[in-house]
């Protein structure tokens, strides 16, 4: 049993590492993409620099990436993982496909949050002579911040779910522990422990996300 507890401990660490780093990198990729998607959309949709062609191309790329079953995406991205991490297996290597799988999701979440900003505010900013850059950073993002925080919370929880599949390429983690020991080896106790820890993680992240979002709304 002690060996299994060590495994539970390790798996929790692997899940936290995978989720933390892939959230960071998916935001790094998804944030600019989401801003571009929102900014280049048509004027009626709140686009500040409408550009139908670019918008279409970006939208398609996002849809293509989101269509891949995660396990296939992981295998397709092996060459990229080898280039960036030096190997295609293990916890570090799964951060690459996790980030790339989550980035288009983040982009859509951010796009939606930015489009919800009251067009009147944007018009007012423009009337006062703000540049596009200023509108994005000083108006749209601060205005949409509570929704953006909710979106990030959603992304993190989604990534916890995705990380369960990382076991296929030796990434480990709690989901993999639940599958391999709980399900395949009929260890109900291990499955229960793994699922409870995942549940606690999801709960903590949701509560923190809600708190931050509520505080941002209250500050206005």
């Amino acid at each position, binding site marked *: 049993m002690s060996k299994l507890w060590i495994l539970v401990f390790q798996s929790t660490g692997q899940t936290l590492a995978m989720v933390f780093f892939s959230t960071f990198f998916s935001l790094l990729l998804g944030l600019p993409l989401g801003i571009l998607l929102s900014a280049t959309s048509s004027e009626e949709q709140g686009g500040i620099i409408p550009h139908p062609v670019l918008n279409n191309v970006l939208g398609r790329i996002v849809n293509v990436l989101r269509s891949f079953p995660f396990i296939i995406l992981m295998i397709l991205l092996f060459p990229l993982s080898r280039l960036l991490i030096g190997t295609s297996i293990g916890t570090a290597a799964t951060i690459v496909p996790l980030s790339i799988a989550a980035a288009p999701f983040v982009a859509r979440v951010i796009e939606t949050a930015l489009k919800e900003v009251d067009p009147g505010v944007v018009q007012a900013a423009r009337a006062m002579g703000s540049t596009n850059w200023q509108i994005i950073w000083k108006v749209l993002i601060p205005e949409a911040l509570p929704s953006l925080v909710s979106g990030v919370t959603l992304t993190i929880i989604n990534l916890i779910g995705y990380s369960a599949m990382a076991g*296929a390429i030796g990434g480990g983690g709690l989901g993999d522990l639940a599958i391999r020991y709980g399900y395949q080896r009929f260890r109900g106790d291990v499955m229960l422990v793994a699922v409870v820890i995942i549940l606690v993680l999801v709960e903590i992240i949701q509560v923190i996300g809600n708190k931050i979002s509520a505080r941002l709304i209250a500050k206005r």
Partner: protein
Amino acid sequence: MKKILIIALVLLVAATTVFAAGTKEQTSSKVLTVGATPEPHAAFLNLIVEDLAAQGITLKVQEFTDYVTPNEALETGELDANFFQHVPYLESFNKDRGYHLANAGGIHVEPFALYSKKYNSLSTLPSGATIAIPNDPTNEGRALLLLESAGLLTLDAKAGLEATPMDIADNPKNLKFREIEAASLPRVLQDVDAAIINGNYAIPAGLIATRDGLLVEGADSPYVNVIAVKEGNQNDERIVALVKALRGDKIKKYVASQYVNGEVVLVTE
């Protein structure tokens, strides 16, 4: 609808009568009825019908497409032997159902082997090498048993067939394990020092156990497909003749021409 029912009934009665006639014939001691799954098991058996006929034994091959009925039929005595399973499967059947089946001889293995892109022999595999193994219970245990059979590690005696790296009692080479989904193993081979891969995943990736394997399951593997008989019949002259014929040249030639990629490897005990 009624007509169809009547026709079906008539056919059923006819079939049972024919079948009953067939079983009556089997009571003669020189008839050997063997159950087998189609490929390669039944194919092997059909090849040696003449060899056994020369010894006065009439071999009847009964094909099955599932893995339960051939054991049930063997236990009830409807079959004299069957040929489709490996020893762990047979033992779990004995344990779960209280059957009395025994191994009368190993014939072939659908090979499971250790491959490497970096080393070309087992002896050059360095200390601390990383080995990728399948992560599902059956194949993971099978992989560790293969390494144990080559003396690379020792497993806890209690571990059984579903051992995991946690059951390793002694690991003199300090090997490290990466547990990966079986189908992904050929794709990650270049990222590890070596990987243990099932034949069905290795072959499409261009890996042939007998040619590329650094370590291949052999006759001592529990996963060898065996001729199974009712306990006590292992030395029945008909069974001994059957096993001998299956290890003969006809089967060797057939395997060499039919399984050029080494999907099936014959074992000799």
